[in-house]
């Protein structure tokens, strides 16, 4: 996302990331991953529940990603899952998603990840801004 941020801004949109944790943890993650757009914390997971973002089981967390997307699964393990599992506010089984909201407050695009490696294509997010 960071690498294509200019494309979103060129279409007049803003990008915000949300993660499980406090605001300070969100800011630390932004620094760690060199993210320049806002990163906010959702320590109570209210946003995740409101959007209906699910949780995967242990198979979905460990073995399924290697069938679905071996490279992505390896990156997840290498980068994040182990560190996130040590944070009591972070549910490592939580799945992500994406939402595009127009300037009138209407949902234009909604993606609920089905697996840990299921992320919406950046082009699909950009198309939702058209």
């Amino acid at each position, binding site marked *: 996302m960071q690498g294509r941020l200019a494309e979103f801004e060129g279409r007049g949109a803003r*990008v915000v990331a949300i993660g499980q944790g406090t605001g300070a943890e969100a800011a630390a993650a932004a620094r760690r991953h060199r993210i320049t757009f806002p990163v906010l914390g959702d320590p109570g997971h209210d946003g995740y529940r409101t959007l209906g973002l699910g949780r995967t089981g242990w198979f979905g967390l460990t073995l399924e990603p290697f069938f679905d997307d071996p490279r992505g699964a390896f990156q997840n393990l290498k980068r994040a899952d182990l560190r996130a599992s040590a944070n009591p506010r972070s549910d490592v089984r939580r799945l992500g998603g994406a939402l595009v909201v127009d300037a009138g407050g209407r949902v234009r695009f909604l993606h609920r990840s089905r697996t840990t490696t299921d992320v919406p294509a950046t082009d699909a997010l950009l198309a939702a801004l058209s």
Partner: protein
Amino acid sequence: MNELRVGDAAPDLVLLDAAERPVALATFWQQAPLVLIFLRHFG
């Protein structure tokens, strides 16, 4: 609660910024279209 769908009004979630201050997402989309990425975790 009905599941959120495309075309619905977006939920005005309140989240926390770096200083732990509450931020309403509506303040973003009132200015411009908003792309929200829900991370699995902070990694």
